[in-house]
């Protein structure tokens, strides 16, 4: 009996020791413009001074042993702050909670690559959007409204209606997060061609960029031609440059019910953009956490695919493609 008790005690002690000595390692991956970033200097801080953690390798990766670098064990659910610095990139600080995951993807923004495509005035105008959080809002560039009375008011009206159309649509898709959604109207001086719009979107770190023009009414109807660019990128999936054409009567443009006239495509494209964002935000390391995050995305994309109604086949091919990719990853 006494021997058994002794054994039990030893096993308990060994178990406690094994738990205590479990490695606390984070796999860091630094990305910018859909490419890995090597040579990023990483520092880590917990309840003491800042510690050098090393630099990312040629694959933009760094395996960080927290206990080894900090000289102390980080308590479960406690958070450490990781700082990422590289010349020519905006500095990034990330909070990592121990016990939640073992991998962390860090998005960095190259200052030179994107900023060189924008004027100083446009950079200043877009600055407030940059840190709004994980590609939340959509950026609306004012529509070119040649020959249309009170263009500023029409742009404000369009912004409000687009926001209402998009947010209400996404809210109706079960499981899709809408907390950060919103359409921000920012006046920029540059052109509205696709590459310039991409630069605006990448610089401001938004979910999508909307821009276009409206032609003066003919036969009582105004034609609004819009471009919708999804900004988050996925290596395995090419997001479409979407064109959405609307015809609205002059009276409707100032009507509070304008959002009802707007096409379903606005909502569907935003669901697609959210899915790309959420796939990118899923833990990079294969495992149950990544799988759980991808299953959530699959659920709301699946719900979007099966939602019927008129014009429901628009961008369905892209949704199917993304679902196929998710199914491959999940199984």
């Amino acid at each position, binding site marked *: 009996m006494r021997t058994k008790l002794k054994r039990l005690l030893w096993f308990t002690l060994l178990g406690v020791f094994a738990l205590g000595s479990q490695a606390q390692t984070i796999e860091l991956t630094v990305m910018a413009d859909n490419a890995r970033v090597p040579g990023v200097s990483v520092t880590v*801080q*917990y309840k003491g001074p*800042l510690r050098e953690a090393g630099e990312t390798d040629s694959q933009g990766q760094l395996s960080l042993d927290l206990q080894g670098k900090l000289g102390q064990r980080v308590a479960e*659910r406690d958070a450490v702050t990781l700082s990422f610095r590289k010349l020519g990139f905006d500095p990034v600080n990330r*909070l990592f909670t121990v016990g939640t995951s073992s991998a962390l993807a860090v998005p960095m923004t190259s200052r030179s690559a994107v900023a060189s495509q924008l004027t100083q005035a446009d950079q200043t105008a877009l*600055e407030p*959007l940059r*840190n709004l*959080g994980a590609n939340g809002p959509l950026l609306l560039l004012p529509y070119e409204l040649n020959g249309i009375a009170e263009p500023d008011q029409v742009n404000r009206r369009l912004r409000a209606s687009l926001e209402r159309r998009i947010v209400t649509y996404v809210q109706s898709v079960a499981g899709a997060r809408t907390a950060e959604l919103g359409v921000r109207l920012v006046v920029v001086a540059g052109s509205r061609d696709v590459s310039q719009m991409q630069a605006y979107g990448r610089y401001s770190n938004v979910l999508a960029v909307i821009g276009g023009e409206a032609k003066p009414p003919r036969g009582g109807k105004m034609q609004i031609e819009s471009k919708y660019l999804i900004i988050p990128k996925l290596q395995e999936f090419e997001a479409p440059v979407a064109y959405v054409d609307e015809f609205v009567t002059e009276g409707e443009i100032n009507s509070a019910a304008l959002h009802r006239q707007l096409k379903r495509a606005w909502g569907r494209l935003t669901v697609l953009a959210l899915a790309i964002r959420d796939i990118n935000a899923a833990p990079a390391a294969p495992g149950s956490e990544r799988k759980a995050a991808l299953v959530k995305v699959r659920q709301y994309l699946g719900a979007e695919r099966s939602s019927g109604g008129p014009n429901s086949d628009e961008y369905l091919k892209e949704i199917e493609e993304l679902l196929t990719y998710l199914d491959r990853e999940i199984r």
Partner: protein
Amino acid sequence: MSDQTLNTAVWGPIDLIDAVSAQLARVGLDLPPIWLQAAALLVSALFAWKLSQQVLLKKRGKTRPKPKPAAIVAFTAFVLLTLGIGLGIVDNALLPSQVVGRVQFERLNEVRVALHGSSDTPISVGTDVVDSIDGRFALHYSPFRDGRARTLRITVAGCKPVDVGLFRPQLVSESLVERTFKCEQS
């Protein structure tokens, strides 16, 4: 009612000692609250023990004279005070040493956060930055040594600092402290 008023309305022996500690810090005697708490506990326990001899103990072979009502009241008060201080110290020691929160602001890289104690001096150790993507932060301190955190101070260069009151239940439950920072020119 402001955060500060609510905070100060909940006086306990520990809060009272913290207030004394804050006043001492103002005149240059900046001691960690635990020293003052320990001293107060010792003095209070000594008084309680001294009074207990009049109120409780019987001398061998003698009948104890009936204790004076004032001695009973004083004894009860000191016992309660000793218990209060002792429980307060234990309670502080058991508080989580991490405060987590989230700041919303358009330039998150410029945001700095710190925990302040009763004497309005920073008590958080380590990092003072927030997550550049979502504004989350985790600040660490020693509630046993420095007492509980009273305020979260959010600063951005060129803007007036913003203080967010912290309450004991919030610290105990480790709930997320959220604040949208609005820059008022300093």
